[in-house]
């Protein structure tokens, strides 16, 4: 399970970083979301991976660490708010700057709009 988990985190991070380096705002936002998914999964695993273990003492034989759950929850909430903000910002930048290029320039392949 550890190998699969780390593979998923790695692939998500790699795709996130790749998309983050694109020049248009939409891929950048998708990249940010993928990166935050990867980070959330990673945080979740920081208490150790265990199956059939509730984070409550007494509920199962070997309870898992409850703290990463709380951390991930906080990170998800904050990440969600930030993503919503950056989407609105990108739409605003598209209308103000006249292009969805992150530097506000017209793309070469599409020419001036």
């Amino acid at each position, binding site marked *: 399970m550890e190998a699969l988990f780390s593979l998923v985190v790695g692939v998500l991070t790699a795709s996130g970083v790749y998309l983050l380096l694109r020049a248009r705002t939409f891929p950048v936002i998708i990249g940010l979301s993928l990166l935050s998914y990867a980070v959330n999964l990673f945080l979740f*695993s920081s208490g150790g991976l265990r199956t059939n273990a509730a984070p409550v003492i007494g509920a199962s034989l070997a309870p898992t660490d409850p703290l990463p759950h709380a951390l991930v929850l906080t990170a998800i909430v904050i990440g969600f708010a930030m993503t919503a903000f950056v989407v609105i*910002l990108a739409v605003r930048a598209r209308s103000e700057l006249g292009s969805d290029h992150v530097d506000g320039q017209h793309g070469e392949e599409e020419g001036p709009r």
Partner: protein
Amino acid sequence: MSQHLIALPIVLPMLAALVLVLLAGRIPDRHQRLLSVAFTALLVLVNLALLSRASGGEVAFYALGNWQAPFGIVLMLDRLSALMLTLTSVLAVGCVLFACAGDDTRGSYFHALFQLQLMGLDGAFLTGDIFNLFVFFEILLLASYALLMHGGGKARIGAGLHYVVLNMTGSALFLVALGVLYGATGTLNMADMARRVASLSSDQTALVTAGGLLLIVVFSLKAALLPLYFWLPHAYAAAPAPVAALFAIMTKVGLYAILRMQTLVFAGSPAAPAIDTWLWWSGLATLALAAVGVLAARDLRTLIAYLVLISVGTLLAGTALQSPAANAALLYYLPHTTLICGALFLIAELIGRQRGKAGTHLVRGRRLYQRFLLGGLFLVAAIAVAGLPPMAGALGKLMLLQAVEGSARLWFWPLLLLAGLCTLVALSRAGSVFFWASYRGEVATGRVSRTQLSGVLWLLASAPLLVLFGGPMSAFTLATAQQLAQPQAVIAELLGDAAAAQASQFHEIPGEAP
């Protein structure tokens, strides 16, 4: 009551923000401004009370919701955090006074956002929990995103987009670092983490070193250290003046976090030498490149943004030395450089408004309407920021130069002095373009209002005041540095023997955290 005072620097701005959001649009602007200034002034008083309490040398803790450390979140008040809190609120008063002259009505909810930003800053300076630090970073960042783009416009939106995306990536890295550190040490409380880092098995040290370095990278992004500073000149030059002035403290949040990690969590750990080396060289490189940037800037705002970078480079190279003398010197230099950079952003705005279309570009323009007043303010600020003798900057730099020892002097002395020279050259060139090389006609707009002037003077007053009270101030910073040099005292204070026993018992429950 008095033990709850520690939470007040966070609670007060939060309440102020709530009140100001609810009242926005329902009461006249004038009343809103009064409220905002009153809340900020009250915050100064609270922080001064905390400063006087912390200056006794006691490290005070406040367990939020009475959940005791290391399980609950604690606020920690020592000399360093009290100093940073006071500095923040003093800077905020100047900014909010300046904003009351009309900058606040260019967008919505300026004062509420401003108070939220103060809440985030205060929280980041107070918290003793590393995840809580992340949360307060997010609060201050979210407020800063909105403040940066306050008033809108192409330049602000463009700069804001970069700033937001960069900081979101930084936050993701922050979480990764937290995950690594939590996985390795099993705690998020800074003092507890310090204790566990000190007694780590050898296979965990690599993890902690990686986590620690990752954390330093994140804080370097906030503090704008060399490979990660390119966002700063762009963003600061585009921000509205009072916001740019408040942002002068934002880089210092990163610096504070680095100082805290270095002196408390990673003191003496295997991660410490790596962190120090990285900070030393990138601090020096930032200093050198920022000096070039100051000379190359073609706009006064960009120039001031590079001045902020010079102070970042100086301070971070100073933290890398890890000696109480260096820490004392940089803590003396820090308030001065923050307040003066803030004042310079405000003065640049005043100058730009009286030059019509030329704005703050370093080109010939119309003659200034109130050239003696603005020239005088600019002269004082320029002398202070360049570190010339009558002002506190000179004293701070001198202390820093003295604190550097051995072969480190070979790098630090010439770079710091040359950066000072570049600052002087660039500012005198800017001053002569603005005040002497002008056309005849005047633009009769942008008269400096009394509130704007009071905001600028409030910030500028720090330069002579820090010299006048140089004795007590440097004694305080020295005491702060000595307190930072003894992290064991903090750990013992927070986690007595009973708590330590309890903690170890908890970790012996079957299925403990790895």
